[in-house]
């Protein structure tokens, strides 16, 4: 995929990439899981329904996206839904990176943990829990990782000040 390609519509992406292994696998598994898709600067982003994260992750893993690289979040405060979870998954066979994007609401900021699919999601999910306060259901040890255990608040939220008192 050329680094200049930009397609922001799901229909356009599905048309441009009919043979993309991850898109094909997700559509075959559960067409409702894929709520949106875009190609921005050559990077493929698939938006997944919040209740289908683990299934979608297992599906793309089986489709060749074998190595989870990174789990992180973006706080779009005050938009609703507030949090965007970004999963970056590398494929050693296809030699590219796929981004799964999940939007979660502040009121019930929780998604399924990916630790049963990739054990390596453990620390990354703890980091997101620590710094954003998003809970991961089914995580074996969801504790703070960078901040002290008795810290209050979640520093990477946008309503948490960069300097001064909380």
């Amino acid at each position, binding site marked *: 995929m050329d680094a200049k390609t930009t397609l922001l519509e799901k229909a356009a992406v599905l048309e441009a990439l009919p043979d993309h292994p991850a898109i094909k696998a997700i559509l075959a598994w559960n067409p409702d899981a894929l709520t949106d898709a875009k190609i921005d600067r050559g990077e493929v982003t698939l938006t997944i329904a919040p209740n289908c994260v683990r299934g979608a992750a297992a599906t793309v893993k089986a489709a060749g996206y074998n190595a989870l*690289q990174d789990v992180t979040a973006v706080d779009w405060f005050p938009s609703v839904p507030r949090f965007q979870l*970004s999963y*970056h998954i590398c494929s050693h066979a296809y030699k590219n990176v796929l981004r799964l994007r999940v939007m979660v609401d502040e009121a019930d900021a929780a998604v399924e943990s990916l630790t049963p699919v*990739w054990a390596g999601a453990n*620390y990354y999910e703890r980091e997101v829990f620590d710094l954003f306060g998003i809970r991961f259901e089914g995580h074996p040890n*969801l504790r703070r990782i960078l901040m002290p255990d008795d810290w209050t608040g979640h520093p990477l939220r946008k309503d948490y000040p*960069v300097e001064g008192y909380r």
Partner: protein
Amino acid sequence: MPDVGTPILEVPVAEGSRDQHMVLNMGPQHPSTHGVLRLVLEIDGEIVVRIYPEIGYLHTGIEKTCEAKFYQQVVPLTDRVDYLGPMANNLVYSLAVEKLLQLEIPPKAQWMRVLLAELTRINSHLIWLGTHAMDIGALTVFLYTFREREEILRLFEMISGQRMMTSYIRIGGLALEAPLDFLPRVQAFIKGFPEKIDEYSNLLTGNPIFMNRLKGVGYLSPEDAVALAVTGPVMRASGVDFDVRRDMPYSSYEKFQFNVPVSNVGDCWARYAVRLEELRESVKIVQQALDGMPEGPIKADAPKIVLPDREQMKTQMEALIHHFKIVTEGFAVPAGEVYQSIESGHGQVGYYVVSDGTAKPYRVHMRYPSFADLQALETMCQGRLLADVVAVVGSIDIVLGEIDR
């Protein structure tokens, strides 16, 4: 501030734990933990049952700080994350922002970036080799590797004015033209360096103590390596053949000829062998960069993003205005999100930069390899002797600055 659940405070006790197991703290001020790493070890006699790494002692909130800075002001922050590989950090951040901006980088800047990234890898591997051997008890090697590292730091000082916090690779190119005698001096260093690698190898490869401490210790299977998000030399020593430089090339790495050393053994010795071989490959890449160094500018042609030449700024009105605007207001970056990976000395570094169209990054996330490598520590040490923990921690080459950020 809404509170999202209360944190679970106690360390969960593993199933099968018995009363006679002892809990032992290693660190955070332990000489073999390479910084402020605290390992809570559950041991049965001398055998490691479980390891709970406790990190965060060096957490300075760099990702949060980035959100309050202009794009160009983030470059010096990235130096301080992995403090042993400053050029690699500058490079990955610059590449990510350049991808957002869709900037074309001139060939000379790209080749200089490759040259500097490889010198950084040599620097990082030299520190690993010296400290790893020192942990095992071979004190001499440290003095040898720091002799060569000193020369690399002098080269960095020559080109950027700083030994460690270089901030030399900037958004849109490089900070300055290299001094005239820089490339000949890199050439002189690179010419003598393969001999030096042989010297280290002579000190360690046949050394029976070193072999006994590393061979068969800290085994990591290829499946576990990928599942635990381990990357870089540790993953390649477990037999997974993937290197970002070759497989997802950036900064014109596709124009260089080099091998990717891989071993199928998966123990600490394999990691030693792979890294030693990587040093030799880095020498080859630097030599190719020196031989084929293109002529031309070192900055992209983007006057609203790249600071103007000092001389132009003092003589041309337009350049002065651009300079003033960039310094006081920064430059707006089109909205979007990018993820850029590179191969640093430790493994795959990924920067995730989200822009909302303003002059400050909305979110910068730094994925560093040591963070993931630490997860694999328990798998590598379980059922082994306590003394092996020191060898394994040394062999995965962690830098706490990049773990805690």
